[in-house]
């Protein structure tokens, strides 16, 4: 109710005594040398309290998430690398003064040749985005499994295509914001909407050249994140200003800035060559990926890795050869976005599967079922699929969508043509691939003398309801009403230093830790109760807030009473349970071969899209969506379906509508008016099916859901369009112009 009544305070709503307003001066050039910066006029402006540039004092090079190439600096020193790159920051008594100060800063640039196409950037002799490096390729990988030549030799059908996916903007309604303040003793506090306060603390300490223990991050409610609110420079720039001014500073991106200098989805060019045997078994797959990192690596190396190997575990395929290149360009740096490389590669993979199916004369659902991974599979990448509901997802989405009749319906020759298409995907529930520290989660739960519990966990709520889920899990184990459980927002001073929420990890890892903590707390309560009731601890149970002896139910005390006794016995300490969850049998990938079981549970999904294509305008209308998701176990159906609905909406945008439109390194569509995100009338009816495959590792069997829910949507739509009008669009977004052009080309042949 706090949210809907406007009472919940987001970062931009915060006010503090003496708070200043900060703004960023951004580079207007894609690639330029900085010859000089003159801030004298800005500094003299009344109301300006701080002006900082990269030339004022040495700023260390850093990276995020322990990525080995230290290519970032808080403010540009020698060069700017993209239009939007941070050059200077000012803090002033009000936003207007800060804006005016920006205009008074004179920067002298020498423009340099820039590179925008990753293919161009890879060529020897291309302008170097980061001259300290040998090339514009900070990361590359290659791995082989099985015998690819043999696989192709055995193939009855070989298809090869190249697909392209663009930048996608997160479109969270809350633009990036930060509030920073320092205490007298040189300790920083950041109030930020941040998916991982722990990772932020590490990265920001490094970026500022201070100790991690000097950084406190208080997680603020998030107005949407979707991967876009992990480490972000604005947070640290705000800290710099607050330190220089000696007062707290608030910084909020304008929407235009957020478009220009956010961290949109990594664009990829993907060539896949797929060989399939006569009996429909996938025989060989050769893949080449060129991933566009933009000006900095950020998380793109992990995203590229994810795109390189995860999808290989979706179907049974033994012979694989993959190469991938992460390439710098002088464009906006790209980063994490729901799906983390999977939406990109699945668009390519699921599209080419349909091409193969068509050539073989096989029904696309049939082809997938023939090859589906199964529970118990141990894949060529070393993944252990303890649970796998993929086949069920395919069957149920096919059944629920009228697939058979619609696939065999005669093609229409009129203006409007209907088609139906299927696509599948998988994901991880947390993953161990590139963050070296650990994977898992920790939680502690305190119970006060009124029997109310507070849960502390390191996994954040992005608005998706993690706090509700954690409260449910804790309440279930403690035997109390979820309304009596509060989940604290993450504060690095108090909360466990968990990795946070990304990689679809919150429910499985955070949830497991909360469950264990609640069980531990329950045990402690039972210990107290056993003493009081003169009963055997093993004999006790709890329900609806009452602890009772199963042998003699009249022997009972309330949870509150037990907790109060505990409080007295601990001289004021509250009964506290601890839980640590480390996913079993999970490992880092081998740095060379990328082999390793990276997650303790893998969710699967299948989506069927039904479309209507207007042959005269190329416009594609989605008539119906059926989404079947194997989430292991449904803890909260309302929240789960909410994730599916929201993700499908983003998938529809990715597939058909969203285009940032970059020309000469400049983001052209920098407002919601021109960057077309789905609105209320764009959503089709959506039938959401939750498949429960009961994973042995998930809490109560639960796996991740929120990320995979986006991945199959675009390829399902592309496949449906192909079924409807026989054109295969290989580049997202599938705009009406592209469809019309493809239809015309087809008619001419």
């Amino acid at each position, binding site marked *: *109710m*706090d*949210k*809907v*009544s*406007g*009472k*919940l*305070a*987001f970062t*931009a*709503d915060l*006010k503090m005594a003496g708070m200043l307003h900060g703004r960023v001066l951004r580079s207007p050039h894609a690639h330029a040398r900085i010859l000089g910066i003159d801030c004298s006029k800005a500094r003299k402006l009344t109301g300006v309290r701080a002006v900082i540039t990269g030339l004022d004092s040495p700023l260390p090079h850093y990276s995020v998430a322990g990525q080995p190439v230290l290519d970032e600096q808080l403010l540009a020193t020698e060069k700017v690398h993209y239009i939007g790159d941070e050059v200077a920051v000012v803090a002033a008594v009000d936003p*207007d003064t800060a804006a005016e100060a920006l205009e008074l800063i004179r920067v002298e640039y020498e423009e340099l040749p820039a590179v925008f196409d990753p293919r161009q950037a890879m060529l020897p002799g291309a302008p170097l985005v980061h001259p300290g490096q040998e090339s514009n390729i900070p990361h590359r990988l290659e791995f082989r499994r099985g015998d690819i030549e043999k696989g192709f030799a055995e193939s009855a059908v070989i298809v090869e295509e190249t697909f392209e996916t663009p930048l996608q903007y*997160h*479109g*969270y*309604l*809350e*633009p990036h914001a930060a509030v920073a303040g320092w205490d007298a003793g040189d300790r920083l506090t950041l109030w930020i909407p941040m998916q991982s306060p722990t990772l932020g603390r590490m990265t920001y300490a490094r970026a500022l050249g201070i100790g991690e223990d000097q950084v406190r991050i208080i997680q603020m*409610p*998030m*107005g*949407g994140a*979707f991967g876009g609110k992990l480490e972000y420079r604005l947070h640290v720039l705000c800290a710099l200003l607050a330190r220089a001014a000696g007062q707290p500073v608030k910084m*909020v991106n*304008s*929407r235009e800035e957020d478009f220009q200098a956010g961290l949109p989805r990594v664009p990829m060019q993907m060539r896949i060559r797929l060989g399939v045997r006569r009996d429909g078994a996938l025989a060989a797959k050769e893949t080449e990926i060129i991933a566009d990192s933009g000006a900095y690596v950020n998380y793109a190396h992990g995203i590229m890795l994810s795109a390189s190997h995860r999808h290989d575990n979706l179907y049974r395929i033994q012979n694989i050869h993959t190469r991938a290149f992460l390439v710098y360009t002088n464009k906006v740096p790209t980063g994490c976005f729901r799906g983390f490389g999977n939406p990109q590669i699945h668009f390519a993979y699921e599209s080419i599967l349909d091409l193969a199916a068509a050539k073989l004369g096989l029904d696309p659902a049939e082809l997938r079922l023939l090859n589906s991974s199964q529970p118990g599979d141990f894949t060529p990448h070393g993944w252990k699929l303890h649970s796998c509901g993929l086949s069920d997802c395919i069957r149920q989405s096919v059944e629920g969508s009228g697939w058979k009749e619609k696939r065999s319906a005669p093609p229409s020759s009129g203006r409007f043509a209907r088609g139906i298409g299927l696509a599948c995907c998988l994901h991880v529930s947390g993953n161990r691939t590139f963050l070296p520290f650990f994977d898992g989660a920790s939680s502690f739960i305190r119970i006060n003398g009124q029997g109310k519990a507070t849960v502390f966990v390191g996994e954040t709520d*992005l*608005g*998706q*309801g993690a706090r509700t889920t954690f409260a449910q899990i804790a309440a279930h184990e403690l035997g109390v009403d979820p309304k009596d459980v509060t989940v604290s927002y993450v504060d690095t001073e108090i909360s466990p230093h968990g990795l946070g929420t990304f990689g679809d990890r919150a429910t499985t890892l955070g949830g497991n830790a909360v469950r264990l903590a609640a069980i531990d707390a329950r045990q402690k309560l039972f210990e107290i109760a056993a003493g009081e009731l003169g009963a055997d601890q093993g004999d006790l149970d709890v329900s609806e807030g009452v602890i009772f002896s199963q042998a003699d139910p009249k022997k009972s005390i309330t949870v509150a009473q037990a907790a109060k006794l505990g409080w007295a016995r601990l001289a004021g300490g509250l009964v506290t349970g601890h839980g640590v969850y480390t996913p079993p049998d999970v490992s880092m990938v081998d740095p060379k071969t990328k082999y390793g079981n990276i997650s303790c549970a893998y969710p699967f999904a299948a989506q069927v899209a039904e479309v209507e294509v207007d042959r005269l305008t190329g416009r594609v209308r989605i008539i119906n969506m059926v989404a079947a998701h194997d989430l292991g176990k449904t803890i909260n159906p*309302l*929240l789960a*379906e*909410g994730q599916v*609905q*929201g*993700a*499908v*909406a*983003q998938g529809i945008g990715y597939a058909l509508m969203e285009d940032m439109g970059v020309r000469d390194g400049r983001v052209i569509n920098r*407002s*919601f*008016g021109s960057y077309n*995100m*789905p*609105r*209320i*009338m764009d*959503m089709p009816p*959506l039938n959401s099916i939750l498949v429960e495959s009961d994973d042995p590792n998930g809490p109560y069997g639960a796996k991740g859901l929120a990320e995979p829910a986006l991945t199959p949507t675009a390829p399902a739509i592309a496949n449906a369009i192909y079924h409807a009008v026989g054109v295969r669009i290989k580049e997202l977004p599938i705009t009406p112009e592209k469809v019309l052009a493809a239809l015309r080309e087809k008619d001419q042949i």
Partner: protein
Amino acid sequence: MVSPGQTLLELLRDELGLTGAKKGCDGGECGACVVLINGQPVNSCLVLACDLDGDAVVTIEGLAGEDSRVIMESFVEAGAVQCGFCSPGMVLAAKALLDEKPDPTPEDVAGALVGHLCRCTGYLRTVEAVRLAARSLAGRRGRGVAAKRGCADCREI
């Protein structure tokens, strides 16, 4: 003394401490800043603070009556609230719609909320929420509970 370029949105947030209206785009495209002026939903980012003159402005904080509470609860119950950033604007627009059309069709709801972007929910539950609110409000009126329409239910600033 307001600066000429200051918007109603900025006045509400920065000076009156009414932060329920959000600055999502500052261009009239996202709906997070919507308030009611004389009962009509408008983007407060496109209204200059100087431009007001005896107008009745109602923000989310001003939706205090029973009817408004029913609408808000419907949003929560229907699962239409995730991050909540767009919710105040949606609720105000829903209130204005229901005041004019107590029994809106899904098309009516979509038409009323086209100016409201939501990136979390996918909107399906938002439509359900408004229709649920319509049914709940009708139920209250049917039982003869005094249900005032329009701004009698609101606190004006």
